[in-house]
């Protein structure tokens, strides 16, 4: 392991040598999802504290994980989702946070703290949350979907867009069958996989997509798709025929939280940044830009009523009670997910007639 590290380090220094122009003043290196912030708040942070923000973005939890795990990166604040936080805690990749330096944490609603992924609440500060669900085009479906199972009917042949990642995709099939997102029972996961394979073979799936779903739903390419509630709110602005359904089995309630990786170099600045991000005016600006939901009770109280009463962004407590958060899965289960996912990917559409 050590030798490998050395080699990587050597390679990296060789690559970085020409461009070593480092910021001389205090910095904080922030690694966030793409399009997940109002970038002007970064300038405000710099103006107020004099700490320069090096801001970069990632596209998936797995991408974030692989850059933290492989070493060589030096981020001070990262914003993974729930299940990835659980995994990083388990693998000892995160620093404990000194909450006394994050006084704005008091603004947060207690229901988003001490969740499954960080039960002792020592490593994370929730940033935003949201749910998944079914987005459909009211002009293209005969009846509004009510459950995840409605994605598996042959009436929707060629009209369904499904998540293009194993956790969300197999997860929704697990929910459709009445199982937990966090099951480690291989029989249940296999059953969910078979359901997805059958769906693909019957030609019901139009495509497996992530952000490509924006264009496809906006341009009436597909009748129905699965995605995040916050992104539905952006889509419906472009195409008013779209509607959102929270499946009756409940959906995934995800919480993205700010964490500090063990490899960080500016711990104090990281805490200052996290504290800044929890301040009400900053939260409101970010929510306005992003469309996801805030865990901050004080910011929510000041929010535009139209937004905070939107049942898609802020579902009722009864609906939320049905939702489940992804927990960390053991490595064996993750490998099993990947193997089962390959079976879904490799399944061929069977020709059908009529």
């Amino acid at each position, binding site marked *: *392991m*050590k030798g490998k590290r050395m080699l990587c380090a050597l*390679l990296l220094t060789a690559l970085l040598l020409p461009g070593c122009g480092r910021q001389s003043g205090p910095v904080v290196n922030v690694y966030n999802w793409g399009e997940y912030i109002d970038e002007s708040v970064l300038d405000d942070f710099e103006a107020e504290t004099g700490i320069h923000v090096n801001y970069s973005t990632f596209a998936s939890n797995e991408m974030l994980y692989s850059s933290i795990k492989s070493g060589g990166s030096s981020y001070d604040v990262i914003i993974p989702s729930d299940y990835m936080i659980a995994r990083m805690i388990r693998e000892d990749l995160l620093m404990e946070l000194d909450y006394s330096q994050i006084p704005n944490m008091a603004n947060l609603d207690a229901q988003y703290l001490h969740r499954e992924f960080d039960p002792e609440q020592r490593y994370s500060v929730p940033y935003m949350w949201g749910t998944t669900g079914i987005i459909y085009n009211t002009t293209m479906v005969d009846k509004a979907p009510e459950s995840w199972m409605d994605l598996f009917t042959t009436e929707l042949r060629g009209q369904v867009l499904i998540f293009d990642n*194993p956790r969300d995709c197999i997860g929704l099939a697990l929910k459709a069958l009445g199982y937990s997102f966090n099951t480690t029972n291989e029989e249940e996961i296999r059953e969910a996989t078979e359901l997805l394979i059958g769906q693909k073979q019957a030609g019901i799936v139009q495509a*497996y997509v992530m952000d490509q779903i924006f264009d496809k739903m906006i341009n009436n390419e597909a009748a129905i798709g699965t995605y995040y509630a916050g992104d539905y709110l952006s889509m419906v602005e472009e195409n008013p025929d779209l509607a959102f359904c929270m499946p009756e089995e409940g959906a995934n309630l995800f919480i993205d939280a700010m964490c500090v990786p063990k490899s960080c170099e500016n711990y104090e600045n990281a805490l200052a940044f996290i504290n800044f991000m929890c301040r009400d005016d900053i939260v409101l600006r970010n929510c306005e830009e992003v469309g996801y939901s805030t865990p901050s009770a004080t910011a929510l109280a000041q929010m535009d009523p139209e937004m905070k009463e939107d049942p898609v962004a802020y579902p009722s407590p009864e609906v939320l009670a049905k939702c489940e958060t992804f927990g960390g899965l053991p490595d064996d289960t993750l490998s099993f997910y990947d*193997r089962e996912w390959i079976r879904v990917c490799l399944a061929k559409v069977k020709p059908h007639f009529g």
Partner: protein
Amino acid sequence: MRTKNAAVPYVFWMAVFVVVPLVLIVAYAFTNFDGEFTLSNFDNIDVFLLVFGNSLYLALIATVICLLIAYPFAYFLAQEGPLFRKVAMLLIMLPMWMNFLLRTYAWMSILENNGFLNQLLGLFGLGPIRIINTDVAVVLGMVYNFLPFMILPIFSVIDKLDKRYIEAAQDLGANKRETFRRVIFPLSLPGVLSGVTMVFIPSISTFAISKLLGGGMSFLLGDLIEMQFLGSAYNPHLGSAIALLMLVLVIIATLVTNRFGNGEEGAVLI
């Protein structure tokens, strides 16, 4: 001595960006997470045979289509005057000035069911045709993106053909077809072989095209390797093992095509 010094940056470049990554791939492929030597990364490789087969199949089709389009094109282009050539070359190169992903995204909106192509067909009362999210779209994406790599080497070989061979063939009584079959084509083979390699290799390892145009409905080697690094189970060792196998596959394919070329013209390939 001077030429040696001038080569230093290139040697450095090759070492850092070619040799070191290759060594890393081999090192990762034969180790486990604890850094110990193991062959276990290759244990379950048979599970992935279907993926290998699928990729090989689509890459071969794309290569053949590229060849069928590119050869006549390059052949006729070589007979044209300098101005026509310049314009044609510019048009071939022009799309390559734009990022490959952007071009593929553009194809996505062209091929969609309500996309540009089907709207156009609709004007003539035709269609709609379903291409997006099928293997056809994946092959189309490969052909579109890699076609210039087939045209350019074939064109440059045909262009540089010693015209005296052709004249000699004609003097000896060969008709047009025979001249082509027995003189021009064999002499242009080096270009064909390097074109085939330059299309086949990126085709077999592509992953963005199958995601965007194939809608994730077909699963290629590139997707499989990407999944080992960015899928739910992070396993760079298995990813490297698969990449290594792909490398071996490509080398075999290259050797086979080389053999077809009878090993003449050392300049062919890679």
